[in-house]
């Protein structure tokens, strides 16, 4: 949301531009992409701005090539990003799994539009929330962030780049058509004030270097190709130097690391916003663009004397299990508005004590609002639900 006290540095900016500018502020130096509505502006701006920073932009032939290019560039030492929407993201999932398995930092932006398939190119959706978690085959945890304003698009773009570097993984930055094309005032920070996670290069002699250390520290050091360090990169299960292995003990170390580097750092990764939650009897759980309607609905309900609050995950994955239990466990009813057929609510029900069993918590009702016709859920729609559950 815009600040009331604006200063001359405040400018009007589009959500997609904020993502591009945020990545540039975080040290992006390579972008490969295949333009797709409603994400095109991100590629467009990077193509103009990156060369000014000494970076490189390549328009690839498709999304498979795009994700492959940013993984390759990252292995060679670049900070990388690509941007797409649902149809392109589907093509990228193979590469995303490869980036996670090979622990190669990169950021994939998914500006969600109506689906399935090519769906509604110019309409918003939140139907790729589960895809951001489970899109690639094989068990690998995901990090996915989802802002709800232009200024937060900028901030979370920086954060996505930093988390990718710190945990050496593919981070997904979610947005949606309305958020991506929306314009709001934004006050850009002084670039010297932006906190950047820089890639740590190994100091050990090359022959001692483990590309995949058994007990890593974070940020996880990473050598780049061409620096004299020898390592192998494969999607196959691999040992500490990256060479394929079938051994159970070596595979276990790998799989444990992939899981635990996220699981042990939930507090570092997860961000939530609580709005008017302290005395609330009813809570709305909403993310991204739907949280804008939710916040407005909270204001409308409060004017009518109904105690409603909103909890918003800025980090969608890993899901904020502990925070959900802590802040939503004592609420009489929870309303989940989302532009899909119930993806966040499915996860919420898992955390709140089993899909069908609400009894173990005080929560008596989880009210779901789904919308997949290409239009936004309105504050009035949420207010109606509040009146029903109160």
């Amino acid at each position, binding site marked *: 949301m815009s600040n009331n006290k604006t200063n001359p540095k405040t400018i009007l900016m589009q959500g997609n531009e904020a993502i591009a500018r945020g990545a540039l502020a975080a040290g992006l130096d390579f972008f490969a992409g295949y333009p797709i509505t409603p994400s095109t502006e991100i590629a467009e701006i990077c193509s103009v701005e990156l060369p000014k920073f000494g970076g490189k932009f390549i328009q690839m032939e498709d999304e498979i090539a795009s994700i492959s290019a940013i993984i390759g560039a990252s292995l060679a030492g670049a900070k990388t990003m690509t941007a797409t929407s649902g149809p392109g993201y589907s093509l990228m999932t193979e590469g995303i799994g490869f980036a996670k398995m090979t622990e190669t930092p990169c950021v994939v932006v998914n500006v969600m539009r109506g689906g399935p398939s090519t769906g509604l190119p110019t309409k918003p959706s939140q139907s790729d929330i589960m895809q951001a978690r489970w899109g690639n085959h094989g068990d690998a945890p995901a990090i996915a962030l989802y802002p709800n304003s232009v200024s937060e698009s900028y901030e979370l773009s920086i954060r996505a780049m930093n988390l990718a570097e710190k945990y050496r993984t593919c981070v997904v930055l979610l947005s949606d058509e309305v958020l991506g094309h929306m314009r709001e005032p934004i006050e850009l920070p002084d670039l010297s004030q932006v906190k950047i996670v820089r890639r740590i290069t190994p100091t050990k002699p090359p022959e001692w270097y483990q590309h995949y250390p058994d007990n890593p520290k974070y940020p996880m050091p990473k050598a780049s190709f061409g620096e004299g360090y020898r390592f192998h990169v494969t999607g196959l299960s691999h040992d500490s130097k990256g060479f394929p292995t079938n051994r159970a003990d070596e595979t276990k170390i790998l799989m444990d690391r992939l899981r635990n580097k996220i699981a042990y750092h939930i507090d570092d990764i997860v961000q939530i916003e609580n709005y008017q939650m302290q005395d609330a009897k009813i809570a709305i759980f909403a993310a991204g663009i739907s949280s804008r309607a939710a*916040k407005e609905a909270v204001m409308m309900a409060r004017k009518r004397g109904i105690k409603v609050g909103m909890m918003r995950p800025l980090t969608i994955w890993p899901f904020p299990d502990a925070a959900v239990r802590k802040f939503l466990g004592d609420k009489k009813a929870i309303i989940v508005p989302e532009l899909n057929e119930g993806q966040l609510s499915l996860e919420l029900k898992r955390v709140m004590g089993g899909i069908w069993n609400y009894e173990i918590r005080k929560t008596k009702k989880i009210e779901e609002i789904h919308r997949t016709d290409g239009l936004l859920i309105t504050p009035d729609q949420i207010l109606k639900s509040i009146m029903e559950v109160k």
Partner: protein
Amino acid sequence: MNKEIFKKEIRLSGSGGQGLITAGIILAKAAVLDKVRVTQTQSYGPESRGGASRADVIISNDEFYYPEAVNFDVLLALTQEACEKYSKNLKDSGILIADTTNVKDIVHLEAKVYELPFTEIAMKKLGTILPTNILSLAFLVKITGVVSESSLKTAVCDFVKPQFKKMNLKAIKIGFKLASEEIIS
């Protein structure tokens, strides 16, 4: 400065290619210059010309979160289709500004209605229909006062390419003049 809390929901509507999203961006930029809160959103089809197109601008000095206009304080309609579709969500206290070059039939409304052939006026006075968006936006700004006239001028000059600056400033002047005449009458 007026300290009263205000919130204005403005919808600029018509068809793709009429420059409505551009007008929305310029209006939002003017609001930033006025140091108030603003959010601009849009809806359009996959085609770059033709098809329904609209831009929403919400301007307020108080907090608001939902980014789309629901009940309009101001509706600009450049096509018959847009006028029919959106005039039912116009507040009774609202203002409809219709371009009678394309809007031939307006249902009875409680709201105040201004009917002018903006496209024809642009063609006649500027020799092109291109600045119809700026001309009608200037009219809207002068009638409604949602942003200051000087901020609108600055926003237009910042936004348009140098070679089109003169034409757009002329369009603003015409829009303001038409509005002054309406206010007097």
